[in-house]
């Protein structure tokens, strides 16, 4: 038996994130690089540590290798603890056979023993899909104060966008009276952020019931939460204000990166009281040469810049040769943009090479209507000399024969 924990977190990191296309071909969505030195999962992990939650189970399933390797023993987030710490929880073989995680609720169900070991009063269920800074301790106080069975973090979104989200109709006292999943005509603009705190005793019971239910998809949003609500459990909405972005699509991933270089950035990563931790590479400082022009850009260590970079985010160890131009783009670690190549409105994944004179992506004004979009170059891809890759393309690694 481990020492008793008041609240532990379970982080759902098994999603494929198929809408990110080739970016998630070999890695799970939470491992996708973000913001010059981070990966998406750094945000919920850092939030946990900053909120005083020191026991975190990370549920992985889809392409877990890179994610498992990245999390390691949890040292970058101060989660290498002798009591608690971070634990990778992958599906495992049991007497009845091996079962994949059938849904988000089933993933937690299969790890009831892990949670019980810490004997927590409360369990936070988080997802590894969002960029935000949030104090889960405040939400926990709210949950306790309201004596709720389940508290759901809620964000007021633009009415025009509301139909993209799972919405909640909330009474004045904070209790949730109704749920609407992506309705065509929203009656509320209060969206669920996919951050839940449950009273563990209650959740445990509903997970077991849900598992026994014939035909359940074993999903929190579709099955467990509606079941708790129908049974009359107290469900409350915790109002969150601040920056929160789902980065589940190429456009939203690109946009959220660009938010970081906007002078009106709503998210401050440089806040010493709420640091976002990440595993840092060992690289020398970046070098900006005589010939370079760098403006409105975020650049990580180890980069060597001799070209022009504007409105972009460059991860560690990126090389931009003389005469190359990068605009409105995201270049992930280790990629090389050679002489006179032009990269615009693109996401270049890790260790790609853009050969001399190649042109990747385009400005919206240079495209036929409806033809414009972000271009994505996959991991380890080489774009040949003088090759032109049009807007909205997605170039992956060639399959080995």
């Amino acid at each position, binding site marked *: 038996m481990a020492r008793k924990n008041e609240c532990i977190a379970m982080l759902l990191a098994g999603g494929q994130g198929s809408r990110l296309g080739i970016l998630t071909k070999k890695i799970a969505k939470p491992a996708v690089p973000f913001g010059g030195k981070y990966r998406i999962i750094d945000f919920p992990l850092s939030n946990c540590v900053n909120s005083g939650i020191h026991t975190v189970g990370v549920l992985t399933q889809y392409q877990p290798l890179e994610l498992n390797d990245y999390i390691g023993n949890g040292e970058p987030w101060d989660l290498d603890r002798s009591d608690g710490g971070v634990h990778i929880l992958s599906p495992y073989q049991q007497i009845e056979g091996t079962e994949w995680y059938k849904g988000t609720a089933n993933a937690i169900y299969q790890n009831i023993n892990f949670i019980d070991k810490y004997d927590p009063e409360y369990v936070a269920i988080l997802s590894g899909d969002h960029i935000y800074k949030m104090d889960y301790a405040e939400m926990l106080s709210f949950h306790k104060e309201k004596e709720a069975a389940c508290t759901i973090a809620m964000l007021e979104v633009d009415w025009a966008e509301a139909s993209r989200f799972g919405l909640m109709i909330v009474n004045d006292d904070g209790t949730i009276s109704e749920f609407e999943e992506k309705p065509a005509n929203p009656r509320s603009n209060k969206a669920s952020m996919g951050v839940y705190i449950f009273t563990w005793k209650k959740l445990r019971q509903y997970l077991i019931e849900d598992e026994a239910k014939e035909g359940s998809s074993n999903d929190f949003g579709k099955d467990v939460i509606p079941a708790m609500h129908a049974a009359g459990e107290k469900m409350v909405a915790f109002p969150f204000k601040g920056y929160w972005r789902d980065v589940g699509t190429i456009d939203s991933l690109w946009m959220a990166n660009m938010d970081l270089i906007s002078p009106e950035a709503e998210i401050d990563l440089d806040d010493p009281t709420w640091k976002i931790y990440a595993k840092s590479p060992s690289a020398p400082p970046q*070098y900006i040469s005589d010939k370079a022009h760098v403006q409105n850009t*975020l650049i990580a260590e180890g980069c060597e810049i001799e070209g022009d970079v504007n409105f972009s985010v460059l991860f560690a160890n990126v090389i931009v040769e003389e005469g190359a131009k990068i605009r409105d783009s995201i270049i992930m670690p280790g990629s090389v943009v050679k002489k006179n190549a032009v990269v615009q409105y693109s996401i270049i994944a890790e260790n790609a090479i853009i050969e001399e004179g190649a042109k990747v992506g385009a400005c919206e004004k240079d495209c036929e209507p409806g033809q414009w979009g972000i271009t994505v170059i996959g991991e380890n891809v080489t774009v040949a000399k003088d090759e032109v890759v049009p807007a909205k393309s997605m170039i992956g690694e060639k399959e080995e024969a």
Partner: protein
Amino acid sequence: MRASEVLGIIHAQNYSSLSQGELTSVRTAASVPYGGRYRMIDFPLSDMVNAGMTQVGIITNTSFQSLVDHVGSGRPWDLDRKREGMFILPPYNTSSALTNHDSKLSSLYSISDFLKKSRQDYVLLTDTNTLYNIDFKDLFKFHTEKNSDITIVYKHGRTPNIQDLMLFAVGDDKRINEISVSSGSEAGMETNYSFNIILMRKSLLEYLVRSAVAHNATSFERDVIQANLQTLKIYGYPITGFSAYMDSLRSYYKANIDLLNPENRKLLFDPAKPVDTKICDNVPAMYGIDAEVKNSLIADGCVIEGTVENSVLFRDVKVQKGAVVRNSILMQGTVISTNSSLNAVITDKNAVVTPNKNLSGDESYPLFISKNSTV
């Protein structure tokens, strides 16, 4: 000789009275910041680990708080081990003995227990006022091939201004035939001088140190090395690659500015011999809409909205709008406010230059702004 059979001993202190002035008044030579994100000790520590050495002792004397803060448990170098790893060796006193680390010889004498209990057969001694990225495996090979008793890394060039610096006459076979010990006044002479990286059998070091102390000797260079030139085979291993001796603020300044040369960077930051340092979790550097940066090294956490040329900026430096920084070294946390301009300035950590100031030194005599001060 396998690298795991070599014990590393790093002297965090400068024993010579001549050093880097104010830079070392608040910290050990080992914790002097260098190259945008490093401390001097990162270089010998990383080299030792890269070569495969597993046990390193760091000898400290005074003002080593910043050093301990930097190296921590040795984690960045993977030296936080159950078996062996990194050890800080400060002076201590017991009821029977009062150790002192006032000289290289006395400190080596006082760590005799540590030497004895380490399982390694060889010892590699280094200082921390020198900068290099050497493949120590090659040095070990050289030592074995020459059947050397003591191997000392040296450089040919103008001698730095260091007291008790050993100067060598080296034969074609790399055997050291003559040693003189400088008093500092010969600085600038063109000759072979010691880089104070010294390899020998542990038992030999223990014996030499013990007998020197027994004879009331005080100088490591004179009484341990020079005195035994005739009886021992002492070889010189020439240093190659980028290297520097920090003997003054000027040489410190030059060693930083020299990193702007891509050839030097390639030599010092060879990806096959990575230099590791403490992780600080800074955000990537941000270049604002009016940023103008040329020929400069910029570390994480910097926010640049002004002009920066030919300079080295450490972590978290802020250069505000209209500020101009040229030929300068700005350490961690420095703030250069609006419309101030700097030329040939070294700022120590967390220095603040308020708006509309004009500070200028000369490349041969850089202006130094001390730690936490406001101009």
